[in-house]
């Protein structure tokens, strides 16, 4: 057999699905991202400094972890609105017990508490076939209430290693960023190389087909919600470690940024589309927009407006893509 040129192989890989892996619109989004980067470098002198870069990375970690969990739930055709409250649960719990248990055990307990909240979400949604929107809206309130029951005042533990998780730098890169990237790699592996992961992706596309194939749909969906809860709690722990203080009001409205990141990354609400790479792209885009607007000194209200506009544009792009199919 004659050896195939590298170009031909790349081309075959790119079109293996029967259509290009990234369409013109996706490429347009990426071009927009690059333009933002260049604009940042041009307008804000402080942008490409080492200090700002590691700052930017630290800032995206919180949303990055939540979005990753949100992606799993969105892939199954659901949505998890309780993530913001679970961030607070994880953060407050971590700060509350770190003095007694030490870093490792406190972190484990925090993540487990988030996974437990996810378990409740998942079981109620999958077992009773309720709308995830309503169920997680309700648990959002319940979990927030529990957080306030645990503490009404901000906690600042005295454990010497409390701030390590959020503040340590490994070379120029924050430790938390490495943790986040490791989570992305693990979730990518889960979704692409395990039966449960492939089932997760398939459920959003056609749940009945997956059920008829003899796959345990219920368990797969519950796992997605548990991962979402666990990742949100981890995000909360990292966040309070970075801030040095754990407020019970932490994480309010964080679900919006997470959903936005998934959508910008090509995820379809209702399931059936979405990828780990795309979500990472969405997280970075949102982080970049925030960072640039901060550097240029735009008021935070404007930031909200700009972010909202970007989200609508991204959703519009996805919709046009679907219509032209």
């Amino acid at each position, binding site marked *: 057999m004659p050896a195939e040129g590298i170009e031909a192989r790349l081309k075959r890989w790119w079109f*293996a699905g*029967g259509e290009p892996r990234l369409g013109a619109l996706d490429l347009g989004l990426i071009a927009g991202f690059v333009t933002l980067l260049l604009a940042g470098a041009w307008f804000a002198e402080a942008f490409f400094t080492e200090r700002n870069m590691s700052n930017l990375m630290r800032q995206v970690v919180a949303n990055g972890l939540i979005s990753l969990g949100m992606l799993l739930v969105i892939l199954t055709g659901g949505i998890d609105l309780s993530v913001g409250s679970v961030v607070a649960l994880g953060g407050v719990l971590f700060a509350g017990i770190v003095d007694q248990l030490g870093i490792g055990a406190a972190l484990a307990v925090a993540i487990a508490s988030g996974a437990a909240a996810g378990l409740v979400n998942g079981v109620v949604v999958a077992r009773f076939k309720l709308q995830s929107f309503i169920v997680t809206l309700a648990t959002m309130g319940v979990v927030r209430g529990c957080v306030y029951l645990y503490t009404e005042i901000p906690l600042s533990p005295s454990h010497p290693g409390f701030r390590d998780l959020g503040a340590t730098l490994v070379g120029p890169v924050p430790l938390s960023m490495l943790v986040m990237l490791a989570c992305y790699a693990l979730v990518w592996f889960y979704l692409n*190389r395990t*039966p449960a992961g*492939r089932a997760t992706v*398939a459920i959003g596309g056609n749940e009945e*087909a997956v059920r*008829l194939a*003899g796959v345990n749909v219920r368990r797969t969906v519950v796992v997605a919600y548990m991962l979402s809860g666990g990742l949100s709690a981890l995000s909360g722990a990292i966040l309070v470690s970075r801030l040095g203080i754990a407020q019970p009001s932490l994480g309010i409205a964080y679900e919006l940024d997470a959903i936005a990141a998934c959508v910008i990354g090509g995820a379809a609400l209702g399931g059936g589309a979405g990828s780990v790479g795309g979500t990472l792209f969405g997280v970075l885009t949102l982080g970049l927009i925030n960072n640039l607007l901060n550097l240029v000194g735009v008021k935070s209200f404007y930031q909200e407006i700009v972010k909202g506009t970007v989200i609508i544009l991204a959703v519009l792009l996805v919709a046009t893509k679907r219509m032209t199919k």
Partner: protein
Amino acid sequence: MHLPFGGTKMSGNAREGLHETLLMSGVFLGVTALLQMSGISKRFGGTQALRSVDITAESGEVHAIIGENGAGKSTLSRILSGAVQSDAGEIRLDGIPQTITNPLRGQQLGIRMVHQHANLVPNLSVTENILLGGMPTAGPFGWWIDWETAHRRVQQILERVGFQGIDVRQRVARLSPAQHQIVEIAKAVAVKPKILIMDEPSAVLAQEDLTKLFALIRRLREENVLIFYISHRLDELYAIADRVTVLKDGSLVGTVDPRHTQRDELIRLMVGRPLQDIFPRRDPKPGRELLSLRGLGRGGSFKHISFAVAEGEIVGLYGLVGSGRTEVARCVFGADRPGTGEIHVMGRPLRPRSPRDALRAGIAMLTEDRIGDGLVLGLSIRDNASLASFPAMSRWGMLDRRRQDALVKAKMRELDVRPPVIERLARMLSGGNQQKVVLAKWLLTEARILLLDEPTRGVDVAAKKEIYATIADLAARGMGILLISSELPEILGMCDRTLVMREGRLVDEFTRAEATEEKILAGAAGVAEASHAG
């Protein structure tokens, strides 16, 4: 009024003469037909549903459109009614080019469609469904609905179309499938249309209602309505059609006069080749019993179903829509709630509570709705084909990619899926190839018993032939196969035994030698007793 042939009524002889002329000359010299569709093409994903189809039709004509499943009949009618847009081609009404961008526009132009699956709002009354959007109002500025007038009006409409006896105040959800169809027909005829499209209206109707339907169609023809009648039941065409247009694989084969066209000729036009060439030659050697049902029943859908399927046997299960044939298979597969009675698989009792239980016992089921519950369209061939056999393809909870790809590729080669690229998204495949992927999914489970529900629906003839060959091959290798189909040629051509269901009961059983189209149909429609009595 722009009627091509003057008068509103024509004697039977005159019409016959006219058609002779038209068919002989092949063109409508000097007159403008009511409807001219030319060069209509439509593509859905990887499937070319219609290829440059031309149809001309007159008012006061019953124009049948026939073709196999997937020939493009429904697409054509949906384009005419405005439900979908064609990619290319032109539609002229009374000679004037029209773009029918949505069903509302179609209705404004006088085009009405009776859908195969009634398009009704289940939680509204019959009255509201029929008058939807045009309810009579009363009071100042017409602020509230005049229910009395509305009910009376609908009552009159039902009488006019010849179907009384439906309570117009009842919610549609409480009606039977046949009554749904009747409401759907009444709704379409309520505003007198110029063109009425009926998509398989007879599928759920019993004999008595069918007679009434034909009477209605004849009356509408007298009123100069153009009726497109889509069906694959040849008997009906001979009963009412003036002309028959045959579609095959999205292309126009021709338009013929049924009075001068033999049944065999029509079938040949539809299928494109003599039937016997499609079905593989088989040498069945039934072995030991694989599956047996004893008195299986569930709720109102089926009762007392007992039959067996042996190794190497292909058993046909025929019945009209609503006869319970699909429900029986779904029950055996554990897709619905379990029923009463017993299922034995290779001598062992089985009570499947989920498809997982059935798959473990060696039963696989290809469902009738490939898009609805067979495929995940956004995923690749690899994912779709593996979905039911993850355990065999993974180790330590991780997919063994090399093993997975080897298994999937081997099946793709065996079934000749094109293109043989396992990364190809299911959405991008043609109907035939999609069906092969679904079949591959079930074959990869290594099942011994295969339940096939309409395995060749929406599949072109070439792929059909390949699927038949695969089924025969599987049987030859010892698999037990239950073949559910609403296509009689398929049942007659493939099955060693044929079971017939009607209204949830098993009513007939024929060996290959005994089975004929007439006997099976008579059993399924329940006319056997009637014809004996009369």
